């Protein structure tokens, strides 16, 4: 595996930073190098929140990239911003629950996934981030799904432990949706 750069972007409160951390923990637990770097400060108040995760087998240089291999866009502004920035041949997963338009760029692999709707079906609105992570692992298998679940189980904060089964379900549903729709 070469280096993979992932940007997860959405509104504050959509769990983008945590989704990135789950990938970071899973990478570390599986012996990979990883960096996680968030947007911070006023940018985060009310506006967008995004993070960049780089996963690699080798020591990582820059923790930031202009053209990421993968973008998980949880809202429309993120889709607008990153559709053109994703690397040629890269992956864009977009939350179609929050907008109604096609992804026009042809030279990337894109997936529209209604994560809010799927989350509601599971019964917890805040699961969109984990559905996205599941979908991404189907399109860009930087790690096996099971390994990422394991990492989530190991690192989820104590107070959220009881939501673990629902988080797993979210990852599964995202993964399956991606497999079915490509």
């Amino acid at each position: 595996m070469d280096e993979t750069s992932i940007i997860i972007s959405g509104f504050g409160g959509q769990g983008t930073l945590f989704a990135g951390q789950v990938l970071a923990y899973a990478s570390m637990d599986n012996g990979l190098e990883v960096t996680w770097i968030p947007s911070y400060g006023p940018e985060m108040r009310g506006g967008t929140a995004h993070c960049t995760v780089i996963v690699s087998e080798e020591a990582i240089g820059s923790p930031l990239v202009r053209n990421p291999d993968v973008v998980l866009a949880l809202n429309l502004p993120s889709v607008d911003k990153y559709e053109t920035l994703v690397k040629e041949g890269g992956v864009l997963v977009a939350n179609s629950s929050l907008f109604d338009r096609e992804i026009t760029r042809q030279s990337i692999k894109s997936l529209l996934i209604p994560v809010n709707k799927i989350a509601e079906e599971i019964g917890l609105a805040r699961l969109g981030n984990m559905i996205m992570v599941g979908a991404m692992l189907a399109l860009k298998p930087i790690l096996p799904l099971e390994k990422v679940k394991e990492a989530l189980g190991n690192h989820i904060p104590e107070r959220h432990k009881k939501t673990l089964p629902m988080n797993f379900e979210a990852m599964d549903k995202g993964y399956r949706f991606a497999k079915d729709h490509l």
Partner: protein
Amino acid sequence: MAKELLKGNHAFAEAAVRAGVEAFYGYPITPSTEFLEYMSARLPALGRVFVQAESEVAAINMVYGAACTGKRVMTASSSPGLSLMMEGISYIAGTEVPAVVVNVMRGGPGLGNIAPSQGDYYQMIKGGGHGDYFPIVLAPASVQEAIDYIGLAFDLADKYRAIVHIVVDGNMGQMMEPAELPPMREIPEKVPDWAVSGAKGREPNILTSIYIDPVDEEVTNLRLLKRWKEIEKNEVIFKEYAVEDAEYLVIGFGTAGRVASSAVREAREAGIKAGLLRPITLAPFPSQRLEELADQVKRILVVEMNSGMMLDDVIRIVKGKVPVEFYGRMGGVTPLPDEIYAEIRRVSENTGPGAEDPRDEWIPRLEKFISGEK
């Protein structure tokens, strides 16, 4: 001990705890606040001292006082806070007491912004405070390096009774990376013989930075200078990447150096013989190594997140042996690997003599880039 996923500011703070810091005095400022917040919980739990001061002015003077007791003490702040601290830093240097000061640099001048920057290079490396003194300045580029060099910073401060700065930027304060923390060090019982602690059964110890007779001050200046010469001889640290056969040398520190390493790797893949020199001690600067490399390479590219501050040092050391070029981003903008890669490409194709001031050639390039980017 296994690696953990650690957030920069927290990791630096915990590294300081494990290096035996006994007191932290600080004032909140983004993007270093998490350092203070971490200490506010951690130090009292260990029975050590934490005070949120009323200002950075007060914080550094608390550090100054505590440093006079010979304990390991520190503060952490960000650019505008450092400006306020410069008074105390000069006093600490003049009194020759050890202290560690972390600067998580942000965009400036003025209130600027909270985005990552290296614009405090002059202030931190060339003094900043008044008078003749020489701070040691360490610039780590990863969470692990920051952890390692915070321990070293305290050791150097003690060894030379000097002020040691650690400069990072908001990227490093905020990022998470797997890293390993060192074991907890014992706090030494012994008080250094110069420290104030109550003159019990001995002559009083007086710690001041005042030398009214200019000759006494000059003798002190000379002592500091000679100590600095020792530091220059013994304490230079840098990292290199792919320099063995390099024809084009990139120089950058901290985040800029780290980003540049990706660009250098890409250049190598494209067959360009690029190499990277990343100073970790900005002061003392790895001058000797740079001189050697200047004899080897065809051209040098300095990359910074400021208007070319380390650049001046590089030009001074390279002495015109080869053309030196510059690429900087300012104001809180972090250059991305593709920008630096494009610069390396350009430099490798440029056989011109190079400008007297590399900024003259860089400014139009940057203007063009900015207008294209927006």
